[in-house]
């Protein structure tokens, strides 16, 4: 059964990126629907960050189509950017500004109505109260992640792109972040595209997984489907099989691609 058009918030088809003639993302295609969390998995250099950068418009594709919230992201990204947001450990918030100043700045940049009210709201939800007057540069890794998460949610995004959202966090903080993302998604029906190396995180958060290797999506399915298909106990073992191309547990059936226009799941 195909997914209603309005529910498809991300539609990617034939996406390619070449640098100096070398193809780093090759014919990537997938769909993410409203309220769904999809994980992009793959080893370092598999093309996850490049794919996310293209979805955000940070990078222009060499070929392919990206529809986000019904708009062509290459041609009309400014119609969409106010409705999406992202977080990445490779991008910082201005470290000499306090948490409150950062959030007020981004709230105004995104045209959030009542920026101070939104700051209060996020401060309560993410327990940022004691940190508001502290500079970003003075925060611990966990506190910075919470501030970055607040920035990523400042405009109440309908689509959130997260690149390794819990990298370098202790298990307790990482668990808290995952819990918060689940709550936000349920409350707002947001779609989340997640790139992560943490398989437990993916199993917990993602309804659907896209496995990347060498710039291509080499397999896809729900975590349970993938585990069953490869005859493994968990997603980490599946990941190792795919990344190492060991073939210890080849999928018992070939990759099944969704019908054109159908949701990832």
């Amino acid at each position: 059964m195909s997914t209603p058009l309005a529910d498809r918030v991300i539609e990617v088809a034939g996406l390619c990126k070449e640098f100096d003639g070398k193809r780093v993302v090759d014919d990537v295609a997938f769909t993410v629907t409203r309220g769904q969390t999809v994980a992009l998995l793959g080893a370092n250099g598999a093309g996850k960050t490049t794919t996310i950068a293209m979805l955000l418009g940070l990078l222009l594709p060499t070929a392919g189509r990206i529809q986000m919230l019904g708009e062509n992201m290459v041609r009309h990204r400014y119609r969409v950017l106010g409705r999406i947001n992202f977080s990445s450990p490779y991008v910082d918030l201005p470290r000499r500004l306090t948490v409150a100043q950062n959030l007020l700045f981004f709230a105004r940049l995104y045209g959030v109505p009542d920026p101070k009210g939104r700051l209060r709201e996020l401060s309560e939800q993410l327990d940022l109260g004691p940190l508001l007057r502290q500079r970003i540069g003075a925060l611990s890794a966990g506190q910075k992640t919470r501030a970055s998460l607040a920035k990523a949610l400042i405009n109440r995004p309908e689509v959130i792109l997260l690149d390794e959202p819990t990298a370098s966090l202790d298990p307790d903080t990482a668990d808290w972040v995952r819990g918060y993302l689940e709550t936000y998604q349920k409350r707002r029906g947001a779609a989340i595209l997640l790139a992560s190396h943490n398989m437990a995180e993916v199993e917990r958060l993602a309804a659907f997984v896209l496995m990347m290797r060498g710039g291509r999506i080499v397999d896809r399915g729900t975590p349970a489907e993938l585990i069953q298909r490869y005859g493994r106990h968990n997603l980490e073992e599946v990941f190792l099989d795919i990344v190492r191309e060991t073939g210890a547990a080849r999928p018992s059936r070939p990759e099944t691609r969704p019908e054109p226009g159908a949701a990832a799941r």
Partner: protein
Amino acid sequence: MSNRTVNTALFAPSRVGAMVLRHVYLLRASWPRVVELMYWPTIQMVLWGFLTKFLLTNSSYIAQASGVLISAVLLWDVLFRGQLGFSLSFLEEIWSRNLPNLAVSPLRPSEFLISLMAMSLIRTLIGILPATGLAIIFYHASVYDLGLPLLAFFVNLIVMSWAIGMAVTALILRVGMGAESTAWLAIFLIAPVSAIYYPVSVLPEWLQLVAWSLPTAPVFEGMRAILIEGQFRVDLLIHAALLDVLYLIIGAGLFLFSYHVARRRGLLLQIGE
């Protein structure tokens, strides 16, 4: 589909205001930055003030218009501080690894440029205004004696500083932080042909052509015309203003082109490394 409204206007003053606010926060939280803004204009003014004092008793040329050197120094600093203010506000985004956050926000490149211009203006005024006050107190030389033309000179110079700032940031976007030092050096490339402290006629003929192709030389010639001859040269101002428009268009074009190339090559994520 969601029916929430998002401001997709081609230009939103609120987004430019947000960018200015971000840099005002930065300045407000860092007194060394504010002191640095005032430091060089003040040092320059003191240095050239003493030189002027000496020349007043030793040179009949300078004696005709006391304060001509101080005015030249202060106006030159408008150009220098303006360009530096523009480029440093851009570099702050790279140093703080915030550029990707801006690039995926609704902030358009044109709004980014306008916010950098606004910050350049704020930084320049913070730097220059105290120095002009000190010049009055110490040397009884007021740049405000230029009257209303001062505003025209200021506008012409600050616009040129933005054009150079855009070219500098375009270069940094294109080749990375290896070009960072151009933020400090680029402006001095045009100093010898800007006729800051001497008339254009002093230059060799071929360099005079170069000088008249920049908006800076007519501004400084216009300043001397007022202070020494008591004449307001509208022709020089129009000459400067037309060139400013041309250079601003070239600067903005270079920036937008480099921004596009950076998106194609993925430099927005890598810059700073």
